[in-house]
């Protein structure tokens, strides 16, 4: 299978007032084309920072070292300008809290179209066409009306679908979803996960970061378990969940209600 993202010896550190903190400590893994990989771990395990560092959206006091190969490029060596050509185009992002992830003073339509206008140099009308297409893909109703609305007029589930739509605007190869279902209610979670499995059918690679083992069991092919900045276990989802090798994975699984197993 083709590898789409290859991470070697990634280290992420933060300068804080209490000294330097290592958030990600020498992590290596790869993601295959078309798979859905789950990254599990508690909050603070470094799973989010791993993926933020890959595309250079760490906060200002963070720095990353190591090697991240994507499209035959080492992302960590690219300049901000070169990186920004990849972000949003080849790699899409979805964040945890849909309530705060959209710009409050811009119309939904503009937030979608600006991505393809910038990356694909599409005209406004082409971009609007594309926007309607992706909104249809994420199963949003009354699209013509929707693109003239502001985020505060929409529900959390709708906003998260729009976030997914934004990530799809330039037909990305990889989508990184950081706890995309955590802030949503259970039925909306189901809908969002359904969209993910649809996307996977279109051969889009998905990295799903979550602490919710139940979600991973449902959609992921492979799992990486992280704890305190290191990978403690990785492998096929069924295997990791059924016969966990590492103590920490066992501990994580013990937190899942019995019936889910």
């Amino acid at each position, binding site marked *: 299978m083709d590898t789409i993202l290859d991470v070697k010896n990634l280290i992420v550190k933060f300068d804080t007032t209490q000294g330097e903190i290592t958030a990600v400590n020498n992590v290596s893994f790869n993601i295959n084309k078309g798979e859905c990989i789950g990254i599990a771990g508690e909050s603070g395990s470094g799973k989010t920072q791993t993926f933020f560092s890959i*595309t250079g*959206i760490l906060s*200002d006091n963070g720095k990353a070292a190591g090697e991240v190969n994507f499209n035959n490029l080492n992302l960590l060596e690219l300049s*901000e*300008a070169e*990186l*920004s*050509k*990849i*972000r*949003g*185009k080849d790699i*899409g*992002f979805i*964040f945890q*809290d849909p309530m*705060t*992830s*959209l*710009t*409050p*003073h*811009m119309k939904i339509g503009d937030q979608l179209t*600006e*991505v393809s206008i*910038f*990356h694909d140099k599409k005209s406004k009308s082409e971009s609007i066409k594309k926007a309607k297409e992706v909104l249809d893909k994420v199963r949003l109703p009354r699209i013509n009306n929707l693109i003239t609305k*502001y985020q*505060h007029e929409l529900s959390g589930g709708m906003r998260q679908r729009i*976030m997914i739509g*934004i990530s799809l605007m330039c037909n990305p190869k990889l989508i990184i979803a950081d706890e995309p279902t955590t802030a949503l209610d259970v039925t909306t979670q189901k809908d969002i996960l359904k969209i993910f499995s649809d996307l996977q059918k279109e051969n889009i690679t998905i990295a799903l970061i979550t602490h919710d083992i139940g979600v991973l069991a449902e959609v992921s092919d492979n799992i990486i378990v992280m704890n305190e900045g290191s990978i403690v276990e990785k492998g096929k989802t069924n295997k990791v969940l059924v016969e966990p090798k590492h103590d920490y994975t066992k501990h994580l699984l013990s937190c899942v209600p019995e019936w889910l197993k």
Partner: protein
Amino acid sequence: MIQLLFKRLTIAIPTLIIIIAFVFFLMRLAPGGPFTNERALPPEIEQKINQAYDLDKPIIHQFGIYLSKTLKGDLGPSYKYKDFTVNELIASGFPVSITLGLSAIILSLFLGCLLGIIAAIKKNTAIDYAVMGVSLVGICVPSFVLAPILSLIFGLYFGLLPISGWGNGNIYNLILPVVSLSLPQIAIISRMMRASTIETLNSDFIKTARSKGLPKNRIIRKHVIRASILPVIDYLAPATAGLMTGSIIIEQIFGLPGIGRYFVVGALQRDYTLVSGVMILYASLLMFLILISDILRALLDPRVKIND
């Protein structure tokens, strides 16, 4: 929009009436009237004067007359500048004061926002420290200290700029007054803008914008500014109030023939009509500014419905 205007008017008119009443009764509460300082007049003449200015009638009656005239736009005759009406005096000073005030508001808003955004983007760098240093000077050096020092340096030592007079609105005559008037506001606005921009830059939707790979200047222009400028819009009216009071002193220091001068003279000499005329003008201007900031807020923040 119409509802917003209506709502503001329902506050504005009672406020204005309260202000008129407040000034009217307060000035009459004070011992001594506008004519008591002058040499003693024969009683019949004094009576005539009082009659001419309606001072012989019961005070409530006087207030009624004054209020109804004011609401028609007639602010009455000045007590001290006997050949002029208050309307004429205000009309003569207004162009000067409004030029000074408008230039100061525009300069404060523009420079304050610009410096604040730059400082926020370059947070914790030399640029940030420099901007915040200047802003600290602006906050700690009151305009009545700054103005004499500036005119000492630029006017007397280097002879670059005139230190007093209006010069028919010549731009060189405007520079020193406008700068000394604006600096405190620039300081406050830039701090405010820096704080709110930093907050916006840390918000989730900026993370989204960055993850879209948009260039930095587009993120700032489209996503950051409109969200960060809201506190400054809310500050518009207090800033105007600050500039108004500041202009009273600045007009004195630079010898500008604006309204501020009439206010001080009027207050010191108990020129009732002049003082309350200026007060009404100031209050109306302020309320107009509040309306403008309401409209701006509604335009900038879609969460505020304009007809709410």
